[in-house]
């Protein structure tokens, strides 16, 4: 997400850097470009207007005039505005009420409410150790109730049994009662998708809200939504006291305009991003980090957190020791471990997104590194004997053929894997030498000149 906006703003920034002075005239053109970039990214028009006006006002103000590098100062203003529009700091769920804390989800058809409930149930169970009950009040869409029941089973939480002939309000109230009596911490209430102009349905969700008195009322919105995000968000915000937003399908190439619009218009903070098909693909939303991702500065904090959460500390320590010894003892088994961990962190694509300096290159790189490639490498290593994995030198022609047959790849691929592995060993020796880390970083980032395939870490390029 945000790649396109990020690219456009990047080119605006490049030109501004060269400006010695900011004047009414040169700012006019730049602000127009920012406006176009935002509109192309599907930011709602009213939000674009207030955004550009604010940027312009501040750009002509004292802080820029005094600055020695007005271009830089201008970029800073754009970044500040982005953060301001999306909300300054991350806002977590507030579940500090007498249990059970009820979370009500509302949104248009197909925005991803039911899927998000499944993900949120898993998130609350695993990361916050809550006992979660889910209940579907969608009595309209065929099989909506079955969908939530199936998801609940998948993520290991209880689904309150309801029938499609029931009354949504009664069903919700019964579920909350059930939760109270059985000591659940949280009840997630799914609702039917509805259009904001459907008065009867909007009334229904209002009544539902009154009936369960939720601690959190979350508006679920598709990241790919266009200008309509503004209207829809406003209508839901008027009907319900929204406490937060879940932005779904944010793993695609949506330009993320909805993220900017929805926060500004409802005033409710974005709390989560839905970033994939699997039930663990839900990420807390950090506005400041996203703003720096938009401006191509990467999101290192999230990357580090992600690594910390998914990497097995034991294994990481072992690998680190090997690295310190200059790659002595680093074998294909360790290589395999690394691949598996990349997979666990949501694949290469999600890592590339968060790396600094990727900007427009992110897409290019992602094209090159699809995750099938990682899987193929894993398959090759899996087809090796333990002896081959610890001492790759013993792999001769006939062993290569066997490995290739075993993993269903041509022999050349096995050769390439072994070569990459050797390069990696060599690189580790360099790290040990003084200043090696810097050189490594340079190689990883392609010497600062935009990472191409040649600049990728060995073993990751194709």
């Amino acid at each position, binding site marked *: 997400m945000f790649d396109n906006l990020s690219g456009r703003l990047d080119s605006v920034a490049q030109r501004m850097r060269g400006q010695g002075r900011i004047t009414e005239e040169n700012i006019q053109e730049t602000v127009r470009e920012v406006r176009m970039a935002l509109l192309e990214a599907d930011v709602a028009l009213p939000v674009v207007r207030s955004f550009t006006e604010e940027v312009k006002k501040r750009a002509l103000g004292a802080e820029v005039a005094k600055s020695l590098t007005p271009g830089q100062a201008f970029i800073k203003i754009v970044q500040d505005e982005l953060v301001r529009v999306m909300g300054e700091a991350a806002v977590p769920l507030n579940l500090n009420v007498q249990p059970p804390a009820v979370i009500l989800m509302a949104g248009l058809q197909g925005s991803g409410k039911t899927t998000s409930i499944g993900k949120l149930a898993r998130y609350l169970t695993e990361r916050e150790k809550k006992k979660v009950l889910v209940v579907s009040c969608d009595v309209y869409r065929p099989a909506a109730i079955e969908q*939530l029941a199936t998801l609940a089973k998948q993520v290991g939480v209880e689904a309150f049994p309801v029938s499609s002939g029931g009354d949504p309000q009664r069903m919700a109230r019964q579920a909350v009662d059930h939760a109270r009596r059985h000591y659940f911490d949280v009840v997630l209430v799914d609702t039917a998708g509805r259009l904001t102009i459907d008065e009867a349905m909007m009334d229904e969700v209002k009544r539902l809200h009154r009936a369960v008195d939720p601690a959190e009322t979350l508006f679920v919105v598709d990241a790919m939504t266009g200008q309509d995000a503004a209207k829809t968000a406003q209508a839901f915000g008027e009907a319900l006291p929204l406490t937060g937003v879940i932005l779904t399908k944010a793993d695609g190439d949506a330009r993320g305009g909805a993220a900017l619009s929805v926060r500004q218009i409802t005033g409710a903070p974005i709390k989560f991003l839905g970033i994939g098909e699997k039930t663990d693909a839900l990420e807390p939303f950090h506005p400041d980090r996203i703003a720096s991702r938009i401006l191509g500065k990467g999101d290192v904090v999230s990357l580090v957190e992600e690594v910390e959460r998914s990497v097995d500390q034991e294994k990481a320590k072992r690998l680190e020791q090997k690295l310190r010894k200059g790659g002595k003892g680093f074998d294909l088994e360790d290589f395999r471990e690394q691949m598996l961990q990349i997979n666990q962190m949501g694949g290469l694509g999600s890592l590339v997104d968060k790396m600094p300096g990727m900007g427009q290159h992110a897409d290019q790189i992602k094209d090159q590194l699809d995750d099938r490639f990682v899987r193929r490498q894993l398959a090759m290593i899996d087809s090796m004997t333990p002896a081959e994995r610890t001492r790759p030198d013993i792999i001769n022609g006939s062993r290569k053929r066997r490995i290739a047959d075993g993993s269903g790849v041509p022999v050349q691929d096995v050769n390439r894997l072994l070569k990459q592995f050797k390069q990696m060993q060599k690189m580790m020796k360099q790290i040990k030498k003084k200043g090696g880390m810097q050189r490594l970083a340079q190689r990883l980032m392609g010497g600062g000149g935009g990472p191409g395939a040649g600049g990728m870490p060995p073993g990751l390029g194709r």
Partner: protein
Amino acid sequence: MSDEQSTGQRRGLMGRLRNSLKRTRSGLTDGLAGVFSGRRRLDDEMLEELEARLLSADVGIEATETVLNGLLERFGRAEIKDGSSVFEGLQEEIAKVLEPVAQPLRIDAAKRPFVILTVGVNGAGKTTTIGKLASRLQQEGRSVMLAAGDTFRAAAVEQLKQWGEQIDCPVIAQSTGADSASVVYDAYEAARARGVDVLIADTAGRLHTQANLMEELRKIRRVLARQDTASPHETLLVLDGGNGQNALAQAEKFGEAVQVSGLVVTKLDGTARGGVLLALAQRLRVPVRYIGVGEGVEDLRPFDAKEFAAALATE
């Protein structure tokens, strides 16, 4: 919406469409007559206002420029007789962009079964569209069979089966988690054996950026082509009418992967204006087959450029 009729009431099809698209329309030209009144010529202020309105209908920068340039050419700086001539001009310019892609779906009776593969991102409305389309084709006197190719999303198979029951249409399904291509293969065999006219295959929603899932779609196509080289005879991409410029990326990527031959744009009965259709028409020229303007089976309407333009910009 005080003038909104109660939903239960029957209306003529034209009325239905106009009513459903009215939000689309009122958003675009609401109060515009006020802006136009008393003006002698197409001045910058008017153009700016029109630009803003087109942009906020998701028309996109490129198509907006086309429409406005057309309007400028039409009127130049000459005097405007009255406001309504501007509206007419606007309608005609919009229709001009849309007309080339308004091509209805034609089912070749010689191809039996005529195979329609539906694809799209998650939540675009594929399954619902299939239900409505099947019912429509049945009403035209064709026999229809459905293939529950969405084996990924929880209860997607059940959702399609319930549609099948509702409109009395056979559904070929395996369990959730089964290989989607194999379901479609089974369905093709069954459709041929029973002499069914049209087979509509559902697929799981997928973001167009996921290479491995797009590969899965290609496999379904390959499996179908092995049965009948011309099949699937139609590959429909279902787009959410509320989507903005990202719809272009969707159409491009799905087009590359599975040669999309037609579009269905859903959910145009809400506040979404579907202006992205103009951007799509201008950039990609993929035929638009149907638009979804409501919950009812009859609310899947063949796309008509003039009608759409009229609904989008009426005085």
